[in-house]
């Protein structure tokens, strides 16, 4: 039977060939599937990047970040650095103002009151100012509560009361951000014309602005100090609003790192903002005679305008014809 012998030969040859094919690549194949050689390693991944991200099969793709130790640095900032920056800025400002008030006292109207007034801020301007100011005070208190409430207020009023208050403070903080932002935008638009820094400001600062000493350097509608406050409100307010919305709408704009960064900018700018506003409130109330009226009734005394904003008064008088409204001495005003 030649056909059987041939069949056996072919079969043996085929087997030998198959064995040869399988034998040749087998050592390298064993290396490829060795899990130790190729597996990802946590320590190595963390060294390469500051976080470990993968793929998840659940719909929430944000949960694909497995590990992100950057939270530790943010925690250090929030619990230590921010409390020093905020406490330092606010208490420091209060201390400076207290020392200033005790040594300098209220900046008086040197020529007394004339009894005649001039419109400084219109009803609309005052409305925008007080809307922004009211929002700011509530936002500042509810914001400071997040940073300083736990060590300072919580031990005094207990867990339940503090949580209840903080919950309402959070709602107020979120909702009042909208009128505050509108206020900042309106302030920016409405007073930009008078707040471009110029040469007069340089001279004003060189002469101490009337804050140091008893000088009365000339100024237009806004002096260099007020321009500073204006730009602090516009830039600071813009920054806190922008970063605040990043935090309020999580993941709309950025991931966790972005939110950590936003919280850092938000809180640092906010505490500096609060310190600056404390100075603003001081000079607008007990710091200077006749200043509050500008935002209160909207009208200031002519003598006040002459002492603090002489160039502005000249402008206003020029617009309404020759200046025949010489400021009266204090005795005349008393009649």
């Amino acid at each position, binding site marked *: 039977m030649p056909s059987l012998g041939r069949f056996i030969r072919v079969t043996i040859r085929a087997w030998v060939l198959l064995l040869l094919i399988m034998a040749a690549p087998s050592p390298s194949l064993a290396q490829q599937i060795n899990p130790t050689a190729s597996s990802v390693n946590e320590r190595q991944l963390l060294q390469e990047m500051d976080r470990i991200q*993968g793929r998840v099969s659940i719909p929430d793709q944000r949960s694909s970040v497995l590990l992100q130790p950057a939270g530790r640095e943010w925690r250090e900032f929030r619990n230590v650095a921010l409390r020093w920056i905020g406490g330092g800025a606010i208490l420091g400002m209060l201390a400076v103002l207290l020392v200033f008030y005790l040594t300098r006292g209220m900046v008086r109207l040197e020529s007394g009151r004339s009894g005649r007034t001039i419109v400084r801020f219109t009803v609309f301007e005052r409305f925008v100012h007080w809307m922004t100011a009211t929002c700011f005070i509530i936002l500042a208190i509810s914001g400071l*509560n997040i940073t300083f409430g736990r060590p300072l207020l919580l031990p005094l009023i207990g*867990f339940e009361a503090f949580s209840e208050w903080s919950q309402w403070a959070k709602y107020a903080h979120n909702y009042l951000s909208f009128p505050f932002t509108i206020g900042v935008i309106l302030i920016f638009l409405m007073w930009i014309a008078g707040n471009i820094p110029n040469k007069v400001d340089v001279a004003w600062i060189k002469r101490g602005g009337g804050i140091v000493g008893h000088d009365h350097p000339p100024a237009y509608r806004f002096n260099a100090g007020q321009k500073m406050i204006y730009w602090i409100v516009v830039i600071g307010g813009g920054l806190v609003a922008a970063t605040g919305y990043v935090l309020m*709408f999580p993941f709309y704009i950025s991931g966790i790192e972005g939110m950590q960064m936003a919280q850092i900018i938000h809180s640092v700018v906010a505490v500096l903002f609060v310190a600056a506003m404390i100075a603003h409130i001081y000079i607008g109330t007990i710091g200077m005679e006749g200043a509050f009226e500008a935002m209160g009734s909207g009208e200031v005394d002519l003598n006040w305008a002459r002492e603090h904003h002489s160039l502005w008064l000249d402008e206003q008088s020029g617009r309404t014809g020759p200046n025949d409204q010489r400021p009266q001495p204090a005795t005349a005003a008393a009649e």
Partner: protein
Amino acid sequence: MARMKFLCDADRCIECNACVTACKNEHEVPWGINRRRVVTINDGKPGERSVSMACMHCTEAPCAAVCPVNCFYTTADGVVLHSKDLCIGCGYCFYACPFGAPQYPKVGNFGSRGKMDKCTYCAGGPEADGSKEEYEKYGANRLAEGKLPLCAEMCSTKSLLAGDGEIIAQIYKERVLKRGYGSGAWGWKTAYRETIES
């Protein structure tokens, strides 16, 4: 008392997501919230590994440190829990957490956050053990019944381990020794500031 920890042996995880499902079912976790998830690293590439991750119940937990209303507490077993009555939903624990554990139900306007929800290590919350209120807010309290977290208990490959930290570390060490490799105790350095030498 034992110091309870989670350990995911990534060399055993087959990404079946049963732990995720078990957790959602056991605690009736609302839609959109995942207390546990499985993340696959290097998906489809050589050396791919899957890790099941939830709250790691950290030592000196960052969430507890940054919480403005101090709503977190650590149990005698080392489990980090929080009170939903005190939580104001500010999101700070989420910024601080290295594991992305805190979750917030979307309630109210904008992206505003409701009360935070996270893995409780199947240990409930501050309410009375096994009470209806506790179940509604935090889910089942298996630990009070002498049971370990369900995710680890029902893991088919015994990749996810839960229990006393020293014991599960020992189990992992023996596994690594026997099979000769291990991709590490994921998250341990960050959560407990220790690693299991392998």
